[in-house]
Structures are given as C-alpha cells and as structure tokens.
C-alpha cells in the first residue's frame, strides 16, 4: 500500500462535489458498490478487498466487471470452495488409529526412556524377551545363521535381552535410527512351535516377526507417520473437489468421477501397512484400483483411474473412514448432496412392547420410520468394509460364503467375524437363520436392497443427478453460504431456475457462484433487490 494510493483517494475525494442531489446519488452509488465489493471479496476470496480495488470503485462509481470475473477465476475462490466442502463433508480423519499397538513403535525417549525404538505392545515384548523389557543399549549380536543373540537379565531369569540395530526408516530415507533388534526383524513369514506359518506383515504375533524391511509395516507416532497418512487422506478428497471446480469440470464428478490422485504416503500405506489394522481398522490393499509403488517420502500426487465400485468422493478413504458405518455414509450423502435428512415422525411404543424385539430395523417399531429409507440407501455401501477400507468385490467376498455359515465361524475366521453374518450374530433363529453365511449387507435385504448393494455408491449418486435433486441441493447450499441464510419459500422459483441453469451449463460450479452473486438479493443485500 503506497502513499500514492492515499494521494489517489484524497484526490478522488476532491473531484466530485457539484449539485447536492447528484452528490447524494453518487455517494450512495459509491457506498453501495464498495459494500458489494467487500461482500464479493470476503465471500469469493476470503479476504477484504485491497485499497487499490476500493479506490477503483470510488473512481468509477461502480465495480469494474473484470474484478468480479478475476475473483471467480482466482485460486482464492478454490480456497473458499474448499471451506464449503469441508463444512459439507467434515473432512478430517486425523483422529484415526491406523493400527493397533503391535505395529506401533515407541521412540527412545519420553516417559519410559529406552536405548532404541521398540514396539509398544506388551505381547511383542513378552514374545521377544520373555517379559516387559526393551533391548540393551549396545549393538545387537548375531550367530552364524543370523539369529539374534541375547543376554539373560541379571534380575529376572525369564527375561533375555538383545541389542539394537541401525535401520534406515521408510519415513526418513538417507538417515538411520536405532531399533531394538527383535522389533526390527525383516522376515516376511515365521513358523511357530506348532508349525503354523505366520504372515509377519499382518500379524503382530510371533517372536520371529518384526517391523519388516525399513520398518515398513510399523507406525511411529513420534515421527508423525500416521498423521502424514491421514492428512493425505484429507487432502486427497479435498484436492479432488478443488480440481473439479478449478478445471471447470461438471460438478457431478464429485459423486460420479472415477479418477483420483494418490501421493506417496497414501500409496505406501495401502501397499504395505493397510493390512496391519486388525480389529482397529480393517483394511487391505484391495481397493478396486491399482496401487502404485511409491516411496512414503514422495509427496507428489499421481492421477489414476478407479474401478466400478468407485464413485467420486463417496468411495475415498477421507469419506469412508470419516463415516465408518454404511448408515453414516448414507446419512452424510443425504445431508450433503440431497439436502435431506432422516427423521422419524413415528411414535415410539413403551420399551416393554414386544415390537422392540424385531431384529429387522425396517420393521421394528420406532425405528422403521427412518430405516425404511436408511437401509436401502446404506446398502449402496454394502460392498465397502464398515469401520475400515476394503473394496469387497464379489470375487473375493461373495454374497454367501459357506465357510462363514459353519458353526463357530465367527470365532475361527476373522474375515467371517468382520464381514459375514455368522451363527454367533443370530438373536432370532426364526427370522435370521436364513442369513447365516451371508455378507452382512445382505441380511434382511430384499431385491431392491440387493440391487443397491451391487450398484454401489455410484447407483445412489447417479439417481441423485438424474432426478435433479443433486443440482437443486448444490444450488441451495451455495445460496445459503453466499446469502448467509437459507432460501425462503418465496424463492423456490429462483432456486429452481438456478438449478435448471446449473444443469444446462454442464454443472459448472463457478458459473453458478457468479450467477448467485450477481442476483439483486446479493448485490443489494439488506434491500433484498427492492
């Protein structure tokens, strides 16, 4: 801001002062234009206008249309639209735990100082050393076969301790850290005393299993690996929506698009760490898209195409993990893209009423008012793992699995317990018995719900677009954001016209935004276009 600018403002103020009425009209025009400019700048760019922009309004008595166009095309608008999407989808999964303690490294500092990084899980320490101990502060020793040599603890004969090794961690290539030798083991598999082969990459049990090559199966909270991954999940979803608006693609791609971007941390997690979630976060590299071989430290984004199970943001980690249940996923879809919410008007009978024992929520009293609509909608995510991240394609997860129909399958097979309806889930054999062995989404599913499961999130998204509800809701939400209020009943026609134009213009969001801020309700603000 220069002194010349003040000079300009002062000079401008000296120019006009002819007849009183003219002065008044001109002053009013300038005041209203300045007010409009301020609204535009704050709503479209998230900041106040510059002094130079305001001075141009004083000079011209009106806003130069090029200023509005520049705002609509600016990167600042993308930032504002991102804020809009954050408010719609609550995109923040930074509170997620990606793994249990068995794959969680502790640093050699903090409350319990240790000579090197070690795995937090008590089970690991018991298996490695026979008790709650960490390694010794000395380099590890190995025998001729490469087996780790240990030193008995002088105070506790049950405990034996090893030394540490230097490892180049995946999160900081080119550097090394000290890691307790047992915890740093790199074997892919290990055979226990009973002859069972254990997959070290997904199972936290086994004295011969560690964190793998470059510690690739483990998280280090101290080094922020989990936060880096969850931040990438947030960013992936938001940058996808940013790009659609920035590149003027049809806004429908938000829920229909098949492309996506992936960065190093996210690709690395999917390829090497997603299977370590266990019961904390059931996940796997099965994502119905290729997972590129990327270094964790590579922060660049790579564009890829996804398979049939995907639908815009609705199948991205930032959505699926934020809304962990299929009902939650459907509910957020309704709120964000249909401007509808589930609400039951049905009275709830007393708790003593037997109708509460009905296991099917679409029939249970007090519940069916919502669940008649919720369950078919939720079914669209039926082939995505709940509280986790797995694309459960039919070839890997058939609707019925004989193995999971066996008595006790839920106890014996983790996949049955997590994803299938087993005998231990049955509370009413008469109504539920026929579903034992079925993928959970198919329980109580009629033909409509079964069709929805197979259609996936793309099915519900396509219906929303084809019905026009998606366009109408997008208009309502943008109107509400820019006008600071919801449209009134009297404005239904205006909303319908905007939605129709939005659709006819190829669902260009920037064009919609410009249409709204040029309406008299916005331009004249409190006067409401009168």
């Amino acid at each position, binding site marked *: 801001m*220069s002194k010349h600018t003040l000079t300009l403002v002062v000079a401008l103020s000296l120019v006009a002062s002819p007849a009183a009425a003219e002065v008044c009209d001109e*002053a009013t025009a300038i005041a209203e234009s*300045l007010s409009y400019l301020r609204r535009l700048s704050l709503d479209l760019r998230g900041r106040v206008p510059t002094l130079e922009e305001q001075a141009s309004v004083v000079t011209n008595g009106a806003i130069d249309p090029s200023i509005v166009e520049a705002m609509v095309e600016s990167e600042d608008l993308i930032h504002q639209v991102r804020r809009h999407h*954050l408010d719609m989808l609550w995109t923040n999964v*930074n509170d997620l735990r990606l793994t249990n303690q068995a794959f969680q490294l502790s640093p050699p500092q903090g409350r319990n100082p240790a000579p090197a990084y070690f795995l937090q899980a008590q089970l690991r320490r018991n298996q490695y050393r026979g008790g709650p101990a960490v390694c010794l502060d000395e380099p590890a020793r190995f025998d001729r076969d490469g087996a780790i040599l240990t030193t008995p603890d002088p105070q506790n004969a049950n405990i034996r301790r090893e030394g540490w090794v230097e490892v180049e961690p995946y999160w900081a290539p080119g550097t090394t850290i000290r890691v307790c030798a047992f915890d740093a083991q790199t074997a892919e598999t290990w055979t226990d005393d009973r002859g069972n082969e254990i997959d070290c990459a997904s199972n936290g049990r086994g004295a011969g299993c560690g964190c793998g090559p470059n510690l690739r199966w483990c998280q280090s909270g101290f080094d922020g690996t989990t936060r880096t991954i969850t931040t990438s999940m947030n960013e992936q979803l938001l940058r996808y929506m940013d790009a659609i608006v920035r590149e003027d693609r049809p806004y429908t791609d938000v829920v229909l698009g098949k492309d996506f971007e992936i960065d190093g941390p996210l690709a690395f997690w999917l390829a090497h760490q997603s299977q370590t979630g266990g019961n904390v976060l059931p996940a796997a590299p099965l994502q119905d898209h290729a997972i590129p071989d990327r270094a964790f430290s590579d922060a660049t984004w790579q564009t890829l195409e996804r398979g049939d199970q995907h639908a815009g943001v609705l199948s991205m980690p930032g959505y699926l993990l934020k809304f962990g249940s299929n009902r939650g996923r459907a509910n957020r879809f309704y709120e964000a893209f249909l401007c509808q919410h589930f609400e039951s008007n049905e009275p709830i009978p007393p708790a003593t009423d037997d109708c509460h024992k009905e296991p099917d929520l679409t029939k249970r009293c007090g519940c069916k008012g919502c669940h008649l609509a919720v369950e078919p909608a939720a079914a669209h995510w039926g082939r995505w793992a709940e509280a986790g991240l797995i694309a459960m394609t039919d070839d890997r997860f058939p609707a019925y699995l004989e193995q999971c129909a066996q008595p006790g399958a839920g106890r014996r097979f983790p996949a049955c317990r997590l994803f299938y309806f087993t005998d231990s889930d049955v509370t009413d054999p008469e109504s539920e018995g026929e579903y034992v062995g079925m993928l959970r989404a198919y329980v109580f599913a009629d033909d409509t719900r079964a069709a929805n499961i197979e259609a996936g999130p793309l099915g519900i998204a396509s219906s929303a677009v084809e019905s026009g509800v998606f366009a109408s809701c997008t208009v309502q939400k943008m109107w509400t954001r820019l006008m600071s209020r919801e449209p009134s009943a009297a404005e239904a026609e205006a909303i319908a016209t905007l939605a129709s134009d939005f659709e006819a213009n190829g669902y260009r969001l920037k064009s919609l935004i410009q249409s709204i801020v040029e309406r008299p*309700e916005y331009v004249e603000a409190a006067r409401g276009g009168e």
Partner: protein
Amino acid sequence: MNRRILMTPLFVFAVAACDATPPAGTVPPDGSETLYPDSWAHAMPEDRGEATITPTPAEAEGRFARRMSVDQLRRSIPVLFDGITWTVNSRNGAQSGFDALSRTLGEADYIQATSHNEEPSPLFAKFMEDMAADVCNQAVRADLEAAPGDPRLIIMDDADVDGTLRFLRLKLHGLYVPSDSTDGIDDLRALYDDVASTQEPPVAWFAVCIAMLTAPEFMAY
C-alpha cells in the same frame, strides 16, 4: 516504541475518550466507582440501540449480514497490514493467533466441532481486542520505523489527520468519506484528539487502529 509504551496510554485513552460525566444510573450507589460504557461494562445498555440478533426472511429478503469468520480474518489481516498478522506465544513458540486459538475462536475442526460458532460472543470479542492490540502495535511500529517514502500501514500522513482517517476508513471498513465531509470520521477524530492531547501521536493512531479493527464495520459484512 515497545508494546508496553503503547498499551499503557491506551488504558488512559479508554477512559479519556468517553464522556467525562457519566449519566445517571452508571455510578454505583456508594459512589466509589465510576463506570464507563466500554465493551465489558453493563452500564448504559440503551446506548447500543436496538438490534435484531436473528432477522427473519420476512424482515429482510436480501443477503444477511454476517460476522467475518476466523479464516477470513486469518487471510485479511496480512493483506491489510503488509504481511503482519496476530502473533501469540505458545509452547511451540510464536505462531498465528488465528491458528493457535482456532477452536477457542469457534472454528470447526470437524472432529470435536463440525460447525463454526460465528456468534459475536464476549469471548470472541475479548480475543479480537487482543488481536487488534497486537496487530496495531506491530503496524504502528512498522510505520515509525519506515524510511521516508516507504509505504505506510496506518499513519499515512501525521500532518493530515482527517485525510489519514479517510484513508483508514476506506482501507479497513470499505467506507468512502469525501474530502468535503467528516461524516463517519468525526468519532475517530474525537478519539484521536482525546488521546493525542495527553500522548504522542503514534499512541493516538494505535488507539484509532484498535477502535477500527474491533468495530462492527470491520467485523461484519
């Protein structure tokens, strides 16, 4: 000039800027304390005039006025003050007050809070006074240290008080005051004169800056 030098006279200004004779009803019964109508005193509520907290569409069918969001403030302050922003000290060292106090100021994090609290609450007002004090202090200091001919942030021309107030009114509030009018700068001029009568001019500009950054004309749009 350090912050303490600027802050101490401000308190004096806050007292001096108001009517020296408080109206009836603002003095406690025992006469031990004189109250002045500032942001926090309960005195003279009628001075604020009537306000509709939540106007209904029936009353106004245009766009509703709203308070600036934390993010808008976060992005606007550096634009207005050549990169200067609200700085607070925390365990992690100096950082933006808008970031360090984001949740306290009502900004959603989408984990604990999924919607923004944009009410002009007393808590928000308190922190905005802190923000204004910090930003104005930095801005005035930058002006005092600027070489002749360099851009100024607040004190555009100490010799032309009304001209500078017009400049600030446009810059901070988006309100244009022609040179043949003092409508809209009278109160600010009175404030400036009050403080300048007992303090150095930079202190008066500091006071004007705080008054303008905490004014509804700045915070609402």
